[in-house]
């Protein structure tokens, strides 16, 4: 059903992670970038003594939104329509792509400028537009790096986080000329120069653009106000200069009321880029005579969200405000980067969102909830308190149950046997005696070295102690005798 949430051909997480872990440059880039942003986030969240209260309010507002999503969407539609906008509904990616393509065609244009948007990445809009002969130009710096490098995004906020300045310089020098104004010959790898090259490259596109496509960070149901939070000003360019604006927004992004932004405008920038406020936030309500686009379309996208909403535990993942704080603190993401997740939504939030959007029957998506040590750093960082570890273990159960069939898998057999042993003190006692004997047979100097079978990967890098000759319970029985049973 959803088209581009996961990338076709990406192997399951463990295998994709192995490839990523072999890339030393990637690991260096990620360690540096995530380290920088973690410190910044802690500094600005630490400034607010009531940060926890703000998180509680954010979580509650998202709950209020989700539990009455239908009512808020209907109110939003009414307000946007009243303000001169047009609202469209898209049940899946194909429908959304068709709506946007037809809207662009109706303008007679063959080019659109785009503001970075997770929703349009999720539905594969650029590819769909290309099939209809429409060129979509990404204008966010990181998205531009990804587009010019014929690459995939690896982070929600900074899609090119896996690239360092030297690599970006090469991409700009190699590809900018094919897409428009070429990079200067003497381009250095200073971030300031790279940003300047992007400014010049995109300027001509902004000035002639007639149609823009954006996502939305929020839309207030009471006023019909839609908002985009950004840094560079490319968003303002796209939202202000063209005649037609098409905004694709996941249905969960609606907020009950404009006043609720008082919470999210504090939570989002501090969690996201680690700033008190991001450089630019644009808000618009329908159309305004003589200012900005005269034609505004809001496409409300389902694409698996209602299925997610139907899961009472998993539902909370729809509260995500795409800040990416969970990625930046995740020890798994820090090592593997985003591509290993095989989805436009990487990291901890991706590991709970992707399998819900595409379903756990998808083998690759079903591997994602297991791509976590359940360390809980994501939950602590989440500005809207999505209990990611809780959803991860919930989805692991769904993934396991999905695979249960008449013939149990080897893993299921092992887990069943372990459950038999571990649920009975008597059987556990027997197993301990066997384990102690077996352990001593394979050990040297009290340590077990390399083992065959499923424990091979564990034992490749770690010694394992031998199970104790006398278990604790045997010791207790021997030395203390009685004992309640």
């Amino acid at each position: 059903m959803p088209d581009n949430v996961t990338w076709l051909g990406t192997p399951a997480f463990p295998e994709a992670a192995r490839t990523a872990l072999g890339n030393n440059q990637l690991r260096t880039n990620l360690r540096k970038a995530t380290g920088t942003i973690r410190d910044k986030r802690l500094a600005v969240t630490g400034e607010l003594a009531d940060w926890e209260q703000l998180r509680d309010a954010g979580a509650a507002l998202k709950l209020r939104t989700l539990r009455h999503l239908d009512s808020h969407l209907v109110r939003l539609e009414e307000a946007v329509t009243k303000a001169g906008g047009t609202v469209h509904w898209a049940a899946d990616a194909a429908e959304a792509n068709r709506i946007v393509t037809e809207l662009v065609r109706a303008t007679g244009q063959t080019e659109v400028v785009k503001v970075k948007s997770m929703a349009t990445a999720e539905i594969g809009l650029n590819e769909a537009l290309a099939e209809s002969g429409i060129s979509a130009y990404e204008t966010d710096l990181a998205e531009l790096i990804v587009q010019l490098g014929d690459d995939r995004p690896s982070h929600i906020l900074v899609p090119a986080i896996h690239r360092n300045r030297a690599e970006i310089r090469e991409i700009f020098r190699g590809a900018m000329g094919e897409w428009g104004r070429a990079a200067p010959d003497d381009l250095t790898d200073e971030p300031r120069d790279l940003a300047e090259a992007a400014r010049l490259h995109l300027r001509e596109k902004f000035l002639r653009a007639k149609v823009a496509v954006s996502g939305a960070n929020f839309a207030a149901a009471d006023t019909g106000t839609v908002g985009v939070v950004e840094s560079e000003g490319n968003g303002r360019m796209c939202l202000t200069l063209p005649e037609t604006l098409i905004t694709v927004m996941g249905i969960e992004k609606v907020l009950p009321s404009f006043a609720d932004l008082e919470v999210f405008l504090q939570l989002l920038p501090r969690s996201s880029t680690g700033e008190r406020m991001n450089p630019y936030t644009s808000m618009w309500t329908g159309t305004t005579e003589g200012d900005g686009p005269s034609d505004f379309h809001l496409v409300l996208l389902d694409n698996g969200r209602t299925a997610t909403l139907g899961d009472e535990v998993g539902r909370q993942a729809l509260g995500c405000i795409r800040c990416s704080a969970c990625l930046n603190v995740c020890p798994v993401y820090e090592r593997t980067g985003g591509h290993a997740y095989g989805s436009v939504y990487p990291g901890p939030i991706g590991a709970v969102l992707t399998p819900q959007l595409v379903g756990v029957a998808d083998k690759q998506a079903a591997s994602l909830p297991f791509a976590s040590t359940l360390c809980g750093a994501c939950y602590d960082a989440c500005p809207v308190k999505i209990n990611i570890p809780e959803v991860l273990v919930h989805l692991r159960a769904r993934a396991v149950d999905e695979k249960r069939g008449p013939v149990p898998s080897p893993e299921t057999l092992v887990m069943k046997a372990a459950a038999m042993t571990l649920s009975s003190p008597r059987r556990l006692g027997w197993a301990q005696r066997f384990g102690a004997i077996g352990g001593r047979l394979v050990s040297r100097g009290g340590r077990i070295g390399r083992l065959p079978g499923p424990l091979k990967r564990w034992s490749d890098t770690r010694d394992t102690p031998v199970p104790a000759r006398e278990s604790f319970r045997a010791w207790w029985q021997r030395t203390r005798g009685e004992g309640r049973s």
Partner: protein
Amino acid sequence: MRIALFITCFNDTMFPDTGKAVVRLLERLGHTVDFPAGQACCGQMHFNTGYRREAKPMVGRFAEAFAGYEAVVTPSGSCAGMVRDYHKVLDPEVDPPPVYELSELLVDVLGVTDVGAYFPHRVTYHPTCHSLRMLRVGDKPLKLLRAVRGIDLVELPAAESCCGFGGTFALKNADTSDAMLADKMRHVQSTGAEVLTAGDNSCLMHIGGGLSRLRTGVGTRHLAEILAAQEGDA
């Protein structure tokens, strides 16, 4: 006070000395320790791996074994977290007993930080993820360690990052687990500590296994064993 010990299946089998240390420590502090023999496993491994159906009977068994105790102590942050956060999720009918991780019991329930221990070694402490972020033990283990006589307690860099164990994660995502382990070992070695301690033997087995394979000479000791140690111990 009368305290029931939940040893955990893992410590029972692999690290009985940790259990013995808990008994010795609490008895030294004047308390009575029971070991309900009906106890087995809390179901954490099955629950965290997605095998809820298999984990559920363990929840009922656990509540039965510890019924009536006003305090249950366990030398495992993650097993304590499992009982506290997830037993009700697995079986809403059960009423899990109050389970405390060792440092919580000592500091919050028994109100002690100086347990009269002696451990003349250079030690660094790894706060395990579940004790830190599920149980929120905070600096309780460090308060206990600071009061140990003879100890040279050194801070572990990036202490709060996960060691990469994660139960079956270490098997299912072995490469990622290895990468996390490598960083943790690097930090441990940078402290020059002789001993790495933590409130969970599972994490210690993982980090210690790596340290042993690399022949670093850094040993691992559960927090309980350091707190139980006294002058005159071998």
